[in-house]
């Protein structure tokens, strides 16, 4: 009894500082890395950060799909990157079919982008639901690695669909005049594609967070993520909730595909594989299952990528991102913001 009253000796300051540093090692490492280049070459690094953030919105949208699905059924949906790729393909295919080019009038272009955005989102959303139905639902009770393997199979099938559709890299009509400068801040030119990426992404993110946080369906999704059995007992249709999660992930991937097409100007059938891995890195970085984390992770990866492009050359960027993925998974598997998956 008396022993309990004795105040615990505080650990020495050095150790407390050391443990605080270790707790935040990711933040510190990243911050130091960015700061180093900011001090060395302020203007070009600021430009990289800007490009990184706008490019990162694409990764953020894809990463949300990974994180939503992982949060609810603990599956790395390998096919997600390829769903995103098909989103790009659908968008570009529709523009070609409708005959919308950079020369069309402004009204046509705006309506064309908005309409095609909706259609390609619906296309990828329903594709994602079908994938879940065919490849993952039959394996709901199988060992965890079984659906991962079917996911890889699905990803290859979709990639080949893309390869048959456009075997070669295809250029996209520059509908938004993507490289035209809109305004300049701190010597950094903000071009139209940057603004476009953020302008499309932001409303989607707000809508998503509202949907998950405020609606009945969102509540059902959160409940299923926490404990599918208990959710079922509470009268939630778990299968339908999982399908809904895939639908939302697919919708976001479709939007990302459209932004990617206009932002980069070319689409390739294998863009989904790399994009998927980068976005997955972002999801893990933000803490898998954590929605805001996935968005932040996407933006951070975007910045890391564009600084790396600039400083080490583009050919190393993929290796840098994958090295970050490995480091995070090995040393901080719960990411920057903590993961939100069910315990055990």
């Amino acid at each position, binding site marked *: 009894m008396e022993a309990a009253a004795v105040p615990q000796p505080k650990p020495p300051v050095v150790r407390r500082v050391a443990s605080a540093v270790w707790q935040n090692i990711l933040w510190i490492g990243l911050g130091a890395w960015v700061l180093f280049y900011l001090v060395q070459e302020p203007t070009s690094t600021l430009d990289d950060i800007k490009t990184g953030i706008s490019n990162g919105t694409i990764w953020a949208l894809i990463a949300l799909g990974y994180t939503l699905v992982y949060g609810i059924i*603990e599956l790395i949906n390998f096919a997600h990157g390829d769903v995103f790729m098909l989103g790009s393909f659908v968008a570009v295919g529709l523009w070609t079919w409708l005959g919308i080019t950079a020369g069309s009038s402004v009204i046509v272009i705006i309506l064309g982008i908005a309409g095609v955005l909706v259609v390609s989102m619906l296309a990828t959303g329903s594709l994602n639901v079908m994938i879940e139905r065919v490849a993952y639902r039959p*394996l709901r009770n199988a060992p965890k690695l079984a659906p991962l393997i079917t996911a890889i*199979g699905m990803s290859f099938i979709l990639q080949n*669909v893309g390869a048959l559709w456009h075997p070669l890299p295809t250029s996209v009509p520059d509908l938004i005049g993507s490289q035209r400068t809109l305004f300049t801040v701190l010597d950094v030119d903000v071009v139209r594609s940057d603004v476009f990426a953020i302008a499309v992404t932001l409303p989607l993110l707000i809508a998503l967070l509202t949907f998950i946080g405020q609606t009945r369906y969102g509540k059902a999704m959160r409940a299923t993520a926490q404990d599918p059995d208990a959710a079922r007992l509470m009268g939630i249709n778990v299968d339908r909730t999982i399908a809904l999660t895939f639908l939302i992930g697919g919708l976001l991937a479709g939007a990302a595909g459209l932004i990617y097409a206009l932002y980069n100007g070319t689409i390739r059938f294998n863009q989904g594989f790399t994009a998927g891995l980068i976005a997955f890195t972002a999801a893990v970085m933000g803490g898998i299952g954590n929605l805001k984390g996935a968005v932040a992770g996407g933006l951070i990866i975007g910045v890391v990528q564009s600084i790396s492009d600039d400083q080490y050359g583009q050919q*190393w960027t993929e290796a840098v991102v*994958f090295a970050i*993925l*490995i480091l995070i998974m*090995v040393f901080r598997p719960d990411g920057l913001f903590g993961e939100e998956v069910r315990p055990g």
Partner: protein
Amino acid sequence: MSGAKSRAPALRSGFSNVRNMLPRWAWMLIFLGLAIAYPYVVPDLLGGGAGDDLLDASVNTLGYIIMALGLNIVVGFAGLLDLGYVAFYAIGAFVIGWLGSGQFEKVHLDFITDVPKALPGLHINFVIVVIVAAAFTGLWGVILGAPTLRLRGDYLAIVTLAFGEIVPRVFENWEFVSNGRQGITPIDRVYLPGVGELNYPIELTGIYFVGLAMVLVTLFVNIRLRDSRLGRAWIAVREDEVAAAAMGVNLVRTKLWAYAVGAAFGGFAGAFLGAYRNTVNVDQFEFGFSVFILCMIIIGGMGNVAGVILGAVALSMLDRFILPQLNSVPDAIGLNFDLTAVNFGIFGFFLLVMMVLRPEGFIPSTRRKLELHAGEVEDAAADRSAEVAPGEPLYEARH
């Protein structure tokens, strides 16, 4: 599902009836005899170009069999899903690129080969190179495997995948060791003391037997390891890590050995394929290849040596021989695409269908099958439990 379940045991018992007609050594002799007679008989039956194509495909198949058996140690025996196996193929292939070509112009070393004395670069005998390649790659297996030891199943898969992407990128960008995108070519032909230099790609029988010998070595090591203390430890770790650790299995050492041995065979086969194809090029080392090898294991039967060989033969023959032969079919039925261009889509489809309908593969290992169907067996047990009289023991499958 119920239809598939009721058919499966029938198929299996038919299979074991045939198998039990002869003792195991007799089967081995029969298959060995077939494999030896094969290059003299089958290509001649097809005749001409198709026969040569078939033999070429068969030599590649031998390399793939070694890799599939190697990956089977990691995935099938130890249960660690490795999606970056291509890294070890790359390392093994580059070892023969370094030790058997003019890549390093500033040095000259010649050891039991037939190359002209004036040629720059390292030229070491093939037999020594494959052993060095296996050892070197095995070491890399440990280096790349060590960080993954603590990870959960799917995270482990992703980390190995990332390694599988990084290794080829490093080779691609580090021109000194790889010549960048051009790759290393030509590579010395295989030279065997007493036989001389094999003159593939004109005459493929010699290299076929080199490959066959390597497959037999791999097979021998594989079976001996599976039945050893280490092999039992791998299976124990696959089935239940915690229980295995409690029984005194050293998890770290067991897993690292699995990575090392699996990787070593990847390098072994990589060196062989590098020498046979006469070029080592980073374009060969893509993620699809890891999945290709994984697909062989899953289709054949994870953890079962015979199944893995069957899967490897079936898939690599499909990839290297059947699809190229059928390449004109889509055109003939009015579709405009190359069948070889969609090969990975076809493998993906196989993966998907196999995993959903028959996850244990065509020739399953009995234990693995039980593990994969554990959920169903438990469900069935739960259904039956109502019918069982109280006090009667219920047999249930382990989770």
